[in-house]
């Protein structure tokens, strides 16, 4: 094992070989290791991505042999379709409700959890379980809880002397019910990310704040936690937003976009048009819109993060 003690000599000896040969070898090795990933990336990501953009310019219907390029007609049809606008509006509304709900609840629970060790593990486990459970299966469970006659919610309302609500069958409450399920399902994930962020805050910052007279919980939140947790907060918001934009399971299982399109969302439209009606070209146009929005959110985050780094 003498070689182990002097790796540097050995490396410089290796470096004494003609540079081009070792460089070539390095190239080959690098390419060899990267090749499987590069090839699968091409076949499964870039190929399909290009294809979906091309399809969006055609009138192709799955199963038909022929199709022709029709320019932006799919997009024109899409933008003239009231159902599309309704689904876009619903998706944004869903995101605008789920993101603050998830982030605020996740942050509050994380701060409360970390403020003491009493029952910490128990609380953390309880809040995290929904993240583990399949959304589609739990949506079915929620369906029975929100059921007009046998559901838990209406039993409670009856008990309090109110009349029941047809949660998922009423177009005024259906999306709201899905929002609640969305927050229920996802805020445990936000919570554990916030916990990690809180743990990374050095204790001396709290001490310094305390010396400066900031000893109440609110002061510590305002002066230490919120400024320090900024990057994590931004990250959690983006992850939650992208997930919320991709809401599908609960819609498919519980409402099928109804009643009266009140819970129709982008991915549900995409799925229905592409795989139920087999309108490939039209579905591809929807995909392009969906992709554009998701990328915009992520890039917006990157930009804001970048500015933070430069100016802070």
């Amino acid at each position: 094992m003498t070689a182990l003690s002097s790796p540097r000599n050995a490396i410089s000896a290796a470096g004494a070989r003609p540079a081009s040969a070792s460089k070539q070898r390095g190239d080959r090795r690098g390419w060899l290791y990267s090749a499987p990933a590069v090839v699968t990336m091409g076949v499964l990501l870039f190929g399909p991505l290009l294809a979906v953009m091309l399809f969006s310019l055609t009138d192709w219907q799955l199963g038909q042999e022929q199709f022709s390029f029709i320019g932006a007609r799919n997009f024109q049809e899409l933008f003239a379709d009231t159902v599309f606008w309704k689904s876009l509006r619903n998706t944004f509304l869903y995101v605008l409700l789920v993101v603050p709900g998830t982030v605020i609840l996740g942050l509050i629970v994380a701060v409360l959890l970390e403020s003491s060790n009493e029952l910490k593990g128990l609380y953390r486990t309880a809040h995290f379980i929904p993240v583990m459970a399949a959304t589609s299966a739990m949506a079915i469970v929620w369906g029975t809880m929100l059921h007009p006659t046998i559901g838990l919610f209406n039993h409670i309302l009856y008990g309090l002397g109110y009349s029941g609500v047809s949660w998922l069958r009423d177009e005024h409450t259906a999306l709201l019910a899905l929002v609640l399920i969305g927050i229920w399902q996802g805020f445990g994930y936000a919570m554990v990310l916030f916990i990690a962020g809180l743990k990374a805050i050095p204790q001396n910052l709290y001490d310094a704040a305390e010396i400066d007279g900031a000893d109440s919980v609110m002061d510590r939140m305002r002066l230490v936690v919120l400024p320090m947790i900024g990057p994590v907060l931004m990250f959690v918001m983006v992850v939650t937003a992208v997930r919320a934009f991709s809401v599908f399971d609960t819609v498919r299982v519980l409402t099928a976009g109804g009643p009266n399109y009140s819970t129709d969302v982008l991915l549900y439209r995409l799925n229905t048009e592409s795989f139920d009606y087999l309108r490939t070209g039209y579905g591809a146009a929807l995909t392009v819109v969906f992709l554009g929005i998701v990328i915009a959110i992520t890039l917006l985050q990157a930009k804001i993060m970048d500015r933070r780094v430069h100016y802070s």
Partner: protein
Amino acid sequence: MTGNRLGPFARILRHVVLMTLAVVIVAPFVWMVLCSFKTQSEILSAEIRIIPHTWAAVENYTAALTRVPMLRFLLNGVIVTLVIFLLQVLVNLPAAYALAKLRFRGRSAFLGLVLLCLLIPVHATAIPTYIMFYKAGLLNTYASLILPFTISVFGIFLMRQFFMTVPDDLIDAARVDGMSEIGIVWRVMLPTAVPALVAFGIFSVVAHWNDYFWPLIVVADQALYTPPLGVAFFRLNDQGTSYGPLMAAATISIAPLVIAFLLAQRRFIEGITLTGMKA
């Protein structure tokens, strides 16, 4: 916020808030399991009992396991998630190593591609991938459930970040000892990467065990259903009216992951946090 510096009032408030929330969060699971023990008439009755009046657990779980091949669905879930993870390791681990530790022409371009791909949501490639499998005659097979996920740019990125932290001296020493590059990846990098690999494994298994979107598109044959499809199918099959067995089916389908989580909470939470923070 460390230190048990909370006053008595704050201490109690903390418990009140967290306990209330915890009860609300766990309620659907409790509801599900309790319903899976109850008879249909009791579920339909106007009054709600917490503890079942008549126990129908055996009947409900027997129905869930026999009316549809529930065990087969679980087995499919295991096969699909494990093979996906294995293939992800085979395809992505060497690339992550190359990006972290090898110098080669095109490396920064490759890294750029990986970062670019991180932006692409899985749903965006659904239509062309579906058509590809359709043309290849592979719809309705295990292959269609597994192969689309062999590439994981997220996995590459995560493992690369981890490999960057492995000291070069360790690799140099192995090289000096005459170990081949493949040997270095599998015998030096892999063992040191185990924590990150476990984290990624948990992330991958949770995502694909619970996935509903893709299996719904590519699989029509009941024998290939994964647990989420199985439960949805069970409900459709029964017109959603026999609630006890349906809740038993839901319980069975989520039980493996939830139990695994309860047994190895620390690993799961660390895994999910790690995969989250590195992205």
